[in-house]
């Protein structure tokens, strides 16, 4: 089995001085998908933000290994984190948002904004200011980064909310393709989703 893409050794995290996660350890290797489940407030988002490197754990270590992924040459940017918020500038159109990202980020993207928006079925509303789009469309645009950049590790925080059935299927197929290319996915969701490969489960205890 390939080296683990993500290795977490007994981290503990706190949010506004309240301990949210204590001594959590797990590792995810290429081709594996880990599902974090737990009631609201059990720290799913805090964990994902720690895995993305936004938060530093109080103690313990988060190790992300950059690795060549099959035939696609990966760049140093090893994580894509899709959060609750869509992360788009409301006054600008989806295409302007994606073009800005591709210009500014250091590892250059592997696909351009237009083709990505087309594959996500947003061809018609490409130039419309994002503010006028529906929540579902915005959610689909925020998934565009999964296709634009190539990173071994995907961190998805409730990606299925506000998606209609066709987009949900499309996301599932994207996840399957990513796993086939020996990528890793950490997913926090309450909804059921079907996925070809075996889904590791990790339920989080509520810390009083």
């Amino acid at each position, binding site marked *: 089995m390939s080296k683990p893409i993500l290795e977490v050794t007994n981290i503990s995290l706190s949010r506004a001085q309240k301990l949210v996660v204590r001594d959590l350890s797990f590792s995810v290797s290429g081709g594996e998908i880990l599902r974090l489940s737990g009631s609201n407030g059990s720290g799913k988002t805090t964990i994902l933000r720690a895995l993305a490197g*936004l938060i530093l754990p109080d103690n313990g270590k988060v190790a992300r290994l950059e690795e060549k992924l099959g035939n696609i040459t990966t760049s140093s940017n090893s994580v894509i984190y899709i*959060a609750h918020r*869509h992360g*788009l500038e409301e006054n*600008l159109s989806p295409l*302007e*948002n994606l073009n800005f990202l591709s210009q*500014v*980020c250091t590892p250059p993207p592997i696909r351009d904004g237009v083709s990505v928006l087309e594959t996500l079925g947003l061809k018609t509303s490409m130039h419309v*200011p994002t503010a006028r789009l529906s929540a579902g469309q915005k959610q689909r645009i925020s998934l565009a980064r999964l296709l634009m950049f190539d990173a071994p590790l995907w961190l998805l925080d409730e990606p299925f909310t506000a998606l209609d059935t066709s987009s949900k299927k499309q996301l599932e197929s994207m996840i399957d393709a990513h796993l086939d290319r020996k990528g890793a996915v950490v997913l926090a969701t309450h909804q059921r989703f079907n996925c070809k490969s075996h889904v590791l489960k990790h339920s989080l205890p509520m810390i009083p």
Partner: protein
Amino acid sequence: MTLFPRAVNETTSRELRKTFRSPSEIFYPLIFFVLVLTMFPFSIPPVPGLFNSIASGILWTAALLAISLSLETLFKADYSSGALEVIHLSGANLVLVAIGKSLGHWIISGLPIALLAFPIGWALDLNFLTLWVLVITLMLGSATMSLTGSSISALTVGLRGGGFLLVMLSLPFFVPLLIFGSSAATNASLGIVPEAELYFLGGMFVLSLTVAPWATAHAIKIRLG
């Protein structure tokens, strides 16, 4: 404009495109500047020539207030929409993004205010040297304010009472600029070419250009952390 690194260009044009999409927003700093200016004649005694003699100081104070209040919008939308997080995580160089943001903010607030000061000063029959000194000091000073202000704006983005906190934290940084800006204009009205003040404002601009973007990048990481 390829003289700046690409990231700065892109951020600035994004900042300008975003603001031009809601046209009224472009003139908020300018309108506020004129608004504050018109308050002074109501409040100071109607001694003939008094307003004109303190006009350069009033112009500078109004510019300072207009700029510090327009700083809040720098990161607010990006922070609440999560765009700031996306930019940071996609490996963008935050220092260049910070410079781009400050430049975008300056083009919307500092530049028009400095240019508007020329006709307004002329209307208040300030002499020619004072007008030029006013425009130059306002440009240099507002650029420094945009740079330093962007660090504080990044630090207080999304906080309860962030707007008030931003003005309170940034005023001690803007006082030296106000001192030297207005004293340059008053000296110019006496006929003295204010070399000392211009050197100082230039020095402050270079200092903030070196320190502020690094501090803004750090502030963003802290606020997202």
